[in-house]
């Protein structure tokens, strides 16, 4: 580096350090290690989509008029000239046709919203299937669920703003659902809309919620999410030299900075490319909102599809009791399915801790196959959501596949319950099969294809042990959890069951434990620790791993016993 640059850097560094004492913390920041894996980029996609949403959204606010005042259109789009419409719709047409780059920004904004939600979904699945939500990262898991829920709301309100026929129909559905909620629904609807639907207040109200309230909360939650991730350090995939007490990867400066910057540009480029060639939400084709009109094949954005499907799949159940209406056909599908998924997801880390008795910190990720039951539960949830999501487009599917619409809905009504069961069972079998394959690889090595004849005349195929990296990956955390204080075997040997396993709740816990820790043990492990768990091993899979063996199976367990936390039972 040149003398001038040196002097400049030196001067800047001194200036900052004299005032803020930055040398030590910033050095730590620059040397922070980021583990590398393709799946760690999913959250970054969501983050960068959000930034792009803020940038393009700010541009759109410069031109958009959140007003339902009626105007007559005189803009560039000739088919709608002379048509009465709200200012919101007219200004959206102006953004599309009269503002240079306006259409591009509008389309990037919409595509980025879809990418934001899609990335959050896939990121959450990654976190779930690899067990990244486990202690100490439960807060970030809960923040993620909140971000996803808020993102749905933000998207719904956002695509309602142009006040075109499609978005107005979506708003009418939203209003109908709100109105169906027992006791408070009618009042909620009148307060939100400032009276009867559609009124003249909903667009300005949704606008301020969409551009200030929810983005503010999202920004705060995302900051907390990133801060926790940074503070707790990133998880890593199992591998040679990677333990629960280290982080292996490239440093923040210059590697991660350059890579993540490149990734931001890449996402911006992809969104720009999509917005150049793939038209999205051509509101000028739908016309202004009118409660008498509708277009066939109305579809919400994809992240609302499961809610839409739930509304379509529900039988027409409604009660009238003592002068009041329980519209089960509306508020049950609107609240229950996603309620089950989000509540279940939020409780899962704590349920898993209680069932497995595993209260330790986890920084090395599980391979999904090694947590067969968790993976199976996740696949069941995906199937449940997926059936509802597909049902949200049942008219289009029926049309494309030439299946009668009613038949398709009946199929979905059964599939939404049976599908998850099948998915659970199939996934679990596949996971256990993969575990068995891994165990076989570890015990017998890789087949070389070399056949040798023994002196006895017998033919055998030579095998070689797997390489160290593969061995480290295969061995890590084979059966995800330690045993409960008293395993089922304890009863057989006449030991006194531990307090946590008595009573109906304790029996439930033991039963769930057996299911949750099911896995294929690695026999004849080469670590020389024997089967020292003292429980008369050999009855079932969960007994194969104890806390002691756990430590030993960790590759390069150099820190022996510094696993920190008491397991806390």
């Amino acid at each position: 580096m040149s003398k001038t640059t040196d002097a400049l850097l030196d001067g800047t560094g001194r200036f900052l350090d004299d005032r803020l004492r930055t040398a030590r913390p910033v050095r730590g920041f620059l040397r922070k290690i980021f583990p590398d894996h393709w799946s760690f980029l999913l959250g970054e996609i969501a983050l960068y989509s959000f930034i792009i949403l803020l940038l393009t959204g700010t541009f759109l606010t410069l031109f958009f008029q959140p007003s339902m005042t009626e105007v007559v259109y005189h803009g560039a789009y000739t088919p709608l000239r002379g048509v009465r419409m709200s200012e919101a719709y007219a200004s959206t047409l102006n953004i599309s046709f009269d503002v240079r780059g306006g259409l591009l920004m509008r389309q990037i904004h919409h595509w980025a919203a879809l990418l934001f939600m899609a990335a959050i979904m896939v990121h959450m699945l990654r976190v779930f299937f690899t067990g990244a939500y486990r202690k100490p990262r439960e807060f970030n898991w809960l923040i993620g669920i909140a971000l996803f829920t808020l993102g749905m709301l933000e998207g719904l309100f956002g695509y309602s703003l142009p006040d075109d026929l499609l978005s107005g129909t979506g708003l009418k559905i939203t209003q109908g659902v709100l109105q169906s909620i027992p006791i408070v629904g009618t009042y909620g609807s009148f307060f939100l809309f400032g009276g009867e639907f559609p009124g003249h207040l909903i667009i300005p109200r949704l606008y301020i919620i969409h551009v200030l309230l929810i983005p503010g909360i999202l920004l705060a939650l995302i900051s907390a999410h990133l801060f926790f991730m940074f503070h707790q350090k990133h998880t890593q995939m199992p591998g040679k030299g990677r333990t629960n007490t280290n982080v292996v990867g490239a440093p923040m400066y210059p590697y991660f900075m350059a890579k993540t910057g490149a990734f931001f540009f890449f996402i911006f480029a992809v969104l720009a490319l999509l917005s150049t060639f793939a038209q999205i939400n051509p509101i000028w084709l739908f016309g202004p909102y009118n409660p008498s009109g509708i277009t066939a094949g109305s579809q919400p954005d994809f992240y609302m599809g499961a809610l839409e499907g739930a509304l379509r799949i529900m039988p027409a159940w409604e009660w009238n009791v003592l002068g009041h209406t329980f519209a089960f056909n509306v508020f049950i599908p609107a609240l229950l399915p996603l309620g089950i998924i989000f509540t279940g997801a939020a409780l899962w880390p704590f349920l898993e801790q209680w069932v497995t008795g595993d209260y330790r910190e986890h920084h090395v990720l599980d391979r999904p196959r090694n947590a067969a039951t968790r993976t199976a539960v996740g696949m069941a949830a995906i199937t449940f959501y997926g059936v509802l999501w597909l049902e949200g487009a049942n008219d289009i599917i029926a049309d494309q596949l030439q299946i009668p619409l009613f038949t398709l809905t009946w199929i979905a009504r059964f599939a939404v319950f049976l599908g998850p069961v099948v998915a659970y069972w199939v996934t679990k079998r596949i996971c256990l099969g993969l575990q068995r394959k891994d165990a076989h690889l570890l015990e017998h090595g890789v087949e070389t294809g070399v056949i040798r004849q023994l002196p006895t005349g017998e033919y055998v195929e030579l095998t070689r042990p797997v390489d160290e990296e593969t061995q480290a990956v295969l061995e890590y955390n084979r059966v995800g959890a330690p045993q409960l204080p008293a395993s089922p075997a304890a009863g057989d040997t006449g030991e006194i069951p531990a307090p946590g396993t008595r009573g109906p709740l304790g029996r439930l816990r033991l039963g769930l434990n057996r299911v949750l820790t099911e896995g294929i043990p690695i026999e004849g492990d080469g670590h020389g620790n024997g089967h020292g768990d003292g429980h008369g091993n050999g009855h079932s899979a969960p007994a194969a791993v104890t806390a002691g063996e756990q430590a030993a199976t960790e590759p390069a367990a150099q820190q022996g016993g510094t696993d920190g936390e008491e397991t806390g039972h």
Partner: protein
Amino acid sequence: MSETEGSEQQLPAGNGADELPESRAPHRVIGTPPPARARTLLEAPPGEGEPPAPRELPAEPANLPQAKRAERVVAALFILSMLASIGFIAAYVGLEVGTVSGTARSNLVLGLAMSVAFGALAVGAVIWVRFLMPQVELTEERKPLASTPQQRAEFAKTFTEGAEASGFAKRKLVRRTLIAATVPLALAPIVLLRDMGPLPGTSLRHTAWRKGMRLLVYGPNTPLRPADFAIPGQMITVVPDGYQDNLDALAKATTIILKFAPGQLLPPTNLNWTVDGIVAYSKICTHVGCPVALYEQTTHHILCPCHQSTFDAARGAKVIFGPAARPLPQLPLGTDAAGYLIATSDYHEPVGPSFWERG
């Protein structure tokens, strides 16, 4: 950054001037400029007795010829990005919008320029990282997140002392009156939201239809005689005369009329409310309120395009399939002195989706 603790690494400490051992730190009088050595944040000059600390990151990548080639590619990509950005600005200035074709052209060129500008930067930066930077893998130790028992005890002590000093635990009167003061304060913002909208009252039970009000065909807004609507199997949307531009009224009052051949209309259709086989139903779906816009004349099925609730138009619009729980309400029809179709009253039940007070 509060990250200092966490990012400690098992790496040799840097030998910046601020980390000189105490004994070697230059002594100086306050107010005089520090010696040159202490002013640099960079490596200490070599040859002063201590060997330079080993580098954590190599200065050069392993494959130098490859790096040389990569450098040229990266530079080319960055130049491409620069040209694309200039192109973006040029297209912004040069390409008119204001027509559909102009907008399409502008969108295409601006979008392409933007994609190339960002894409070339992205690819260039990736090649830079992969081939110009030496590949490293560093290990950072991870400390348990939990504080030590001693730190926790210190915290507990500080917290308890503070609580005691504040008297919050001991002075019940202060504590309870404070809590009593915050409860109504928390209610105030909720009360403030009251004026966001009027109370529902009975507004959901009525529509704009009144006795004698003509049916206007939606769109052209013309009244209709039964003879103008003579072909069985048709469905048209009508709105109340005088409310054709009132969206709030249309949201409830929009109605469909259907023409049936004699004898086709069956109970529970109220035949007294029909005129010459013309029957009128609310267009607002009883599920969540979409307009029921699709009509299949061979089966007399009215289908809501939103959630596929299906109603039998010949039988009082009763529900045949789908999530709607109630038939579409029927509007009583008649004709006025001039022979035009009119409503003989408002709907006799609330139209549209269910609500708690509906009963």
